[in-house]
């Protein structure tokens, strides 16, 4: 297979994910409404609680909504990209996967295209939420949004690879509830999206630093409101490491996937 053929496969699989994205407005709306519910109900609720003098100090010098919104954006990137990775199970169930398995392109190329496409849609969703949430954030820079989205894209690559890796080992959606309770929820709660990691007990803090989502939340918050617990360069390193590791694992597991 020529390098051109490789690129074609990557391109066309990304194209497929984008087509699916624009074809399902209900999915787009759901993926935007859900974070907005968090911001409005959860966020407003706590924001009015943390209005006492000195409360801002708890969140690195910003009000609670400014602290929360970047976290919610990172959370939506995470669930969006992870779930689209998992949705490769649909392809298995509805048969399209066979079309890819029998194609003369390396599976890694097809998978990479899919990951890049899924990550782009997750980032677009994040962008929409960011734009809607902006008026609620106290200070924000245009360049900051671009950086935040760039970091979001990097995080999405790793998380959608994680979804594909897990889906490659699953036979049906039966195990899905399990993943929801044992993976998605803990990763979100540990990430510092809702509350600062700083005040966690040491063992929770340890787990938080092992959660890749922590670095994505931290970087998004840094670029959007200028508050960070971790150096953004470390965030970048952690996300790149996450991407490399998970893409390799996903490529291996997806490559081994067979019809049996």
């Amino acid at each position, binding site marked *: 297979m020529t390098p051109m053929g490789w690129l*074609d496969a990557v*391109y066309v699989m990304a*194209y497929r994910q984008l*087509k699916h994205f624009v074809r399902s407005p209900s999915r787009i709306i759901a993926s935007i409404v859900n974070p907005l519910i968090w911001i409005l109900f959860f966020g407003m609720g706590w924001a009015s609680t943390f209005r006492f003098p000195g409360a801002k100090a708890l969140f690195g010098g910003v009000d609670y909504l400014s602290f929360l919104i970047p976290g919610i954006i990172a959370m939506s990137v995470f669930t969006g990209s992870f779930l689209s990775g998992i949705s490769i199970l649909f392809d298995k169930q509805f048969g399209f996967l*066979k*079309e890819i398995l029998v194609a*003369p392109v390396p599976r890694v190329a097809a998978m990479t295209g899919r990951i890049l496409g899924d990550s782009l849609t997750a980032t677009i969703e994040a962008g929409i939420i960011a734009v809607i949430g902006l008026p609620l954030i106290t200070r924000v820079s245009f360049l900051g949004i671009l950086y935040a989205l760039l970091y979001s894209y990097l995080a999405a690559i790793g998380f959608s690879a994680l979804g594909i890796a897990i889906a490659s080992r699953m036979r049906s959606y039966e195990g899905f509830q399990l993943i929801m309770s044992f993976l998605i929820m803990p990763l979100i709660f540990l990430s510092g999206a809702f509350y600062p990691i700083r005040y966690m007990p040491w063992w929770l803090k340890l787990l938080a630093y092992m959660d890749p989502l922590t670095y994505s939340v931290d970087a998004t918050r840094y670029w959007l409101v200028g508050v960070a617990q971790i150096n953004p360069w470390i965030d970048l390193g952690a996300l790149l490491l996450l991407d490399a590791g998970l893409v390799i694992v996903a490529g291996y597991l997806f490559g081994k996937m067979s019809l049996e």
Partner: protein
Amino acid sequence: MKRYGDIVAVNGVSFRVKYGEIFGFLGPNGAGKTTTIHILSTLLKPTAGRALVAGYDVVREAASVRRSIGIVFQDPSLDEGLTAYENLYIHGRVYGLRGSALRERIEEMLGFVELEEYRDRLVRTFSGGMRRRLELARALLHEPRVLFLDEPTLGLDPHARTRLWEYITRLRAEKGVTIFLTTHYMEEAEQLCDRIAIIDKGRIVATGSPDELKSMLGDEVVYMRVSDPGKACKALERLESVKECKVLQGGRVSIHVPSAAQTIPELLEAAKNSGVRVVEVSYRRPTLNDVFIHLTGRGIEEESVDETERIRIYARSYFRRKG
């Protein structure tokens, strides 16, 4: 040979398909037809044995095999959330086609299966027959040398089935592509295939053209309605070309002969000479089902639909919107 643990799915499956012919694998469900196709299309690795497709080894030269083949799977494999055109476009790009060459090729194939009007409709809205046609167009898009069709008309209504048969027959005439198909429909094998391998329990039990297979049984059967069956049989059994004459119900007799076409005049003559009046004559060549019964002791199509197939047929009709 392909083995799953202790279960041997196919074994002793050895055959050659000639360039440009339609070769059929005929056998009941679970005979190993799909397993064979999956091995030939590089989706499964054989546990033992060797297979060449378009001159390439399916294990060592899998990439070359993949480029040379097109396949319509038994179960649907289209992307339902995309349009007909997009499904073909993605396939084309994955197989290295692009630009105006790809666009022209897509239009050509949409025309071939008569789906031009539906090009921008989502596959989700397609009937079972339309989906199969689109899958056929997709499998042919990159001009494969060998086309695999796994139970191409399973679950289709008679009209859609006949239509698909027409495309397959036209393919051989117009494109010269070699076709390997599996089926458990007798009529399908007979209508479409130049040669057939009858497969049962993972083994090929016979190979040949439909006519060759049927002539294995030797004779043909002539049915006659006559004024006096007993007398008729007595007279006819004296003829050299008559192997056996049986009296049936309703004043009828059945006569086994090597060739009905040649023997019928002789039979009529003999009946007339013995004073028996012949009211009606018909004859039947043995069907492939008779051949299958002869070889395996049971029929193919009489078998009850097994569970997997029921689910498949259900799944297909479930997603169908239009008749």
